[in-house]
């Protein structure tokens, strides 16, 4: 069997007394599109943030192509350039234009020339339908547009894996579709995606695996078909009943 791109092993994360991640084991292979679902406070964001070390795990290991990312000497910068992240609140660089948001990483981290970076950024912005807005500042565009630019910024680094933390939760309902459709295209392109989401339709129709988290544990990790039609875990069933009957 080939090595997983990302492997999480016995991951634990406490915030003080609060045990947020109890014992997480989890693997991602190339081309996986994994939806992470679960109720509020179950630790979904914390898991994603631990994966790119925005949070330092309390214990346990995370491997990238078999390499321990917490080992001394491991290049965290290089790793993060390979594993992009899209945030609920976009976090576009407010001082930079749409175009510069998508070139700054290429230039500073990937050491590309400015013209090369701009050319590639434009291609990607075009693919998310934002090429018209290259001169705009983040505050001048809508939430859906911001999130598409944020996705373009992550893609500009040519990552192997993209982590999404509730990318549509901060959006007005009419803007959710445009972002989900970009994500669908990414899923179809073969990019590896880890998506924390409350969009059950996305989880069911787009992902090949669904992970249900409950109180800091992975309660169920299976195909969408099993999770949605025949969950093994009682808590999964209760959660989904609640989500789907809203």
């Amino acid at each position, binding site marked *: 069997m080939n090595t997983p791109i990302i492997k999480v092993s016995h991951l634990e994360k406490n915030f003080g007394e609060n045990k947020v991640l109890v014992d997480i084991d989890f693997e991602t292979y190339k081309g996986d599109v994994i939806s992470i679902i679960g109720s509020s406070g179950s630790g979904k964001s914390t898991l994603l943030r631990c994966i790119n070390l925005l949070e330092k795990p309390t214990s346990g290991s995370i491997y990238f192509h078999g390499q321990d990312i917490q080992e001394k000497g491991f290049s965290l910068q290089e790793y*993060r350039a390979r594993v992009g992240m899209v*945030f609920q609140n976009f*976090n576009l*660089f407010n*001082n930079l234009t749409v175009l510069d948001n998508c070139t*700054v990483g290429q230039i500073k981290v990937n050491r590309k020339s400015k013209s090369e970076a701009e*050319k590639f950024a434009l*291609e990607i912005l075009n693919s998310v339908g934002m*090429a018209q807005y290259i*001169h705009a500042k983040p505050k001048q565009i809508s939430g859906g547009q911001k999130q598409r630019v944020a996705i373009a910024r992550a893609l500009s680094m040519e990552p192997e894996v993209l982590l999404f933390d509730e990318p549509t939760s901060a959006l007005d309902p009419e803007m959710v579709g445009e972002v989900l459709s970009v994500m669908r295209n990414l899923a179809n392109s073969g990019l590896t995606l880890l998506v924390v989401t409350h969009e059950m339709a996305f989880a069911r129709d787009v992902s090949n695996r669904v992970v249900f988290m409950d109180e800091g544990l992975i309660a169920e990790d299976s195909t969408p078909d099993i999770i949605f039609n025949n969950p093994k875990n009682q808590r999964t069933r209760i959660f989904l009943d609640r989500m789907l009957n809203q």
Partner: protein
Amino acid sequence: MPASFFEWVVFFAKKYGIFFLKGAGTTLYIALISTILGFLIGLAIAVIRTTPMDEHDSQAKKAFYKIVQAIFVAYIEIFRGTPMIVQSMVIYYGSAELWGLDMSPIVAALFIVSINTGAYMAEIARGGIISVDKGQYEAASSIGMTHRQIMISVVLPQAIRNILPSIGNEFVVNIKDTSVLNVISVTELFFMSKSAAGTYMRYFEVFFITCVIYFILTFTVTRLLLIVEKKMDGPDTFVIHGSQTVPSAVLKGTR
């Protein structure tokens, strides 16, 4: 001899016009240079103070960092906690007494006002850095940028923009507060006014003129800074790019 208030004002304006202008020039010069230097000092301190420690760093490095922090805190507290007029006396006469330093008053003035401003700026700049949304830093980290790159490209531009009004405020304060430097004989506006007034024993008329000049200086500076702020914010609107099909053509149009 002039008889009325108005005649005295005209008399002084004519006879001492150059004198006043020179004083105003010196005041502006000290205030401007010291605000810039003070800003750089404050920014440097704030950047160092907000640098996170790496857990892999050695004990020696961590201890050194603690000591540096303590020195900065002492500097900030001492210079913010004592009047600049007293600092001027201590530094100017102290440097002569202790080290036989013969600073010219103007050099001493630049030194004193700069480090005094630096103490205030250090806290202003630190506030500016801390107030930049944490998400900006996290997003930059998530594409692999280093702390230094994030500070230079993302955090500091926003922090500096946000503290620009406070920097302008410090500049205005400095224009006014350089007047205390007359105690070490710096030939700034207040010193010049005092000499002119003393010659004729006409304090009211002279300092009326002085008052007007100070106000013109501070008012102009305030207006100019508002323009700078507007400039930094960039245009309210942006240009939509029509052609989406030929990326290179679009790019040529952008610069």
